[in-house]
């Protein structure tokens, strides 16, 4: 009996000790983790916009995050956007609820600060409060509108699609006319030496500079990449020549990776899907914002 008590007491004490150590560690690291993740994300974004490591980012550049939600009740569904409000001084966000045909249902202000909105949970609660009872909200995706001196210069779109093995997750940069200006493969589990080549420059750079019209019907061709084009894709020629090649091949289909046609096709279809869906949505949102004369930051 005495044994039992000592065992229980000691186990409890050690559990409490362990919990303290872990809890303290969690408290100290959780903020750093979020911070570092955010920095990493920003770095990818700036790289997509053409600011490589160390390049100075102009102060006039601003990133505005737009969150999209799918709102559903038992009868109908609608799309809700959380957009940043106003210009500079006015902080806070507006919640814009648009039905499936692109007609505005309602707008509501959301009182969240810049940092609060980054927290998924806080944001979800705020959106839920905005739509009122009887509705379910689910976070769909996040888009970043990039402005330079208040003028839109690009959108950054995240997305995920089925690859050959598992999901491929990407981030794309498109300009206001939806021409693709950059692509980064964030995560994938394709086969090394085959599908994994999608993260190589010579594949990714083929997408650069494709206009929206070409993207809408983009496909892959099974043919070797012409040698001079390959050089340009790998960045082995001068800046001017790269642009020349980009212009020459801008309406051309994507050259599939040798031995990995399925992965190549998955990426080109995925990119096509992300951009076409986004172009539709941003047009709807812009129209509504314009009609309602809502002051948004971008």
């Amino acid at each position, binding site marked *: 009996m005495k044994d039992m008590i000592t065992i229980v007491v000691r186990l409890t004490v050690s559990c409490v000790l362990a919990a303290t150590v872990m809890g303290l560690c969690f408290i100290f690291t959780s903020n750093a983790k979020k911070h570092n993740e955010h920095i990493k994300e920003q770095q990818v974004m700036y790289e997509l916009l053409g600011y490589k490591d160390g390049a100075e980012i102009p102060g006039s550049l601003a990133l505005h995050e737009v969150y999209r939600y799918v709102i559903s009740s038992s009868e109908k569904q609608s799309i809700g956007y959380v957009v940043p409000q106003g210009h500079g001084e006015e902080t806070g966000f507006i919640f814009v609820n648009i039905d499936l045909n692109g007609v505005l249902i309602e707008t509501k202000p959301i009182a969240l600060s810049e940092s609060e909105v980054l927290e998924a949970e806080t944001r979800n609660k705020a959106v839920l409060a905005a739509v009122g009872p009887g509705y379910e909200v689910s976070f769909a995706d996040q888009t970043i509108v990039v402005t330079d001196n208040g003028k839109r210069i690009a959108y950054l779109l995240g997305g995920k699609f089925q690859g050959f093995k598992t999901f491929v997750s990407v981030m794309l940069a498109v300009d206001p006319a939806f021409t693709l200006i950059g692509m980064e493969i964030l995560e994938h589990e394709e*086969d090394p030496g*085959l599908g994994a080549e999608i993260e190589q420059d010579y594949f990714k750079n083929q997408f650069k500079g494709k206009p929206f019209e070409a993207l809408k019907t983009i496909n892959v061709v099974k043919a*070797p990449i012409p040698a001079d084009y390959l050089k340009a894709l790998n960045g082995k020629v001068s800046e001017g020549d790269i642009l020349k090649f980009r212009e020459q091949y801008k309406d051309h289909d994507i050259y599939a990776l*040798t*031995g990995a046609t399925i992965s190549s096709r998955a990426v080109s279809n995925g990119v096509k899907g992300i951009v076409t869906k986004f172009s539709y949505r941003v047009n709807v949102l812009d129209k509504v914002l314009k009609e309602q004369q809502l002051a948004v930051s971008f």
Partner: protein
Amino acid sequence: MSKQQASDDLTTAKAGLWKVSISPHLKSSESVEKIMWTVVACLVPSLILSVFVFGIQTLIITAVSVISCVVVEAVSQKTLGRKVTIKDGSAVLTGLLLAFVIPPGVSPLLPILAAVFAIYIGKHLLGGIGYNFFNPALLGRAFLLASFPVAMTSAWLTPIEGFDIFSHLGRSIDAVSTATPLAVLKEQGMVAFTNAFGSGASLYTNFFLGWRPGCIGETSGFLLVLGGLYLIYRGYITWHIPVSLLGTIAVLTWIFGGESYFTGDPLLALLSGGALLGAFYMATDYVTSPTTKTSKIIFGIGIGGLTVLIRLKGGYPEGICYAILLMNPLSTVLDSWFKPKRFAPPAGGTK
């Protein structure tokens, strides 16, 4: 089909298992050497044909492969302090089979690496001839496929016109490469297949005679079947594995291979990949296949099923290589499950 029957018997005897003379058709007067060289001889016509189908470089690849296998065998036997047995033809056979399962457009350096892997790691480390669990030639191929996925899946050549056997020499692979029938069927569907290879009787004759893209030695169905039948006639191999294997492939392809059930083309399935080569020469290897009749049939069915599974649903257009590799280690298990009744120890006494 590459190892000594003698040492196989030794294995079973040592293992304290029953010593079964399960191959009544294998005459005791036949030496291992003779069997091996006969099999090699049966494969040579296919090799000669491949020179006329794909060009002279198939001969170069095969020569490199055979020589490196023999050298590796001799070196590993020397360094491990064993008797050098390169004259028995088993290394030559492994080299020949290894060359037969790689595309004709690859660099001749590839088989050297594969030979080291197949003979040294796949065979001699495990105790030498008679002790390997996997078919060495196929291990070599799997190794190449893992190391050079692009070359091994795209260096296919179109059959050459006329007798211009030097036409593919010195040309870059990108310029001449094509796709194998199974790859076209898998990735682009039946319509593209018909466009590329035609249809009807001429398709079957072309495929049967070997005029199609494919691995070096797998295309000439006619010569492979002829050689296989001769081996069966001589009693070096039995009919069980080839028949059950090919039968399973045909039936399963017929059921699942088409747009809807029961519309697949079984004949095409047998002719368009490495099924015939695998069935007669790879799956029947003495060391890595089971010994009793029932287990042989099940072994064949297993390979056939896995082949069709990989062909239709897997990541590769052709699956017989991996199917045989997957079934190889099961051969001992199958033997212990289906051992002849009279030799079985009393129930519960198995160890």
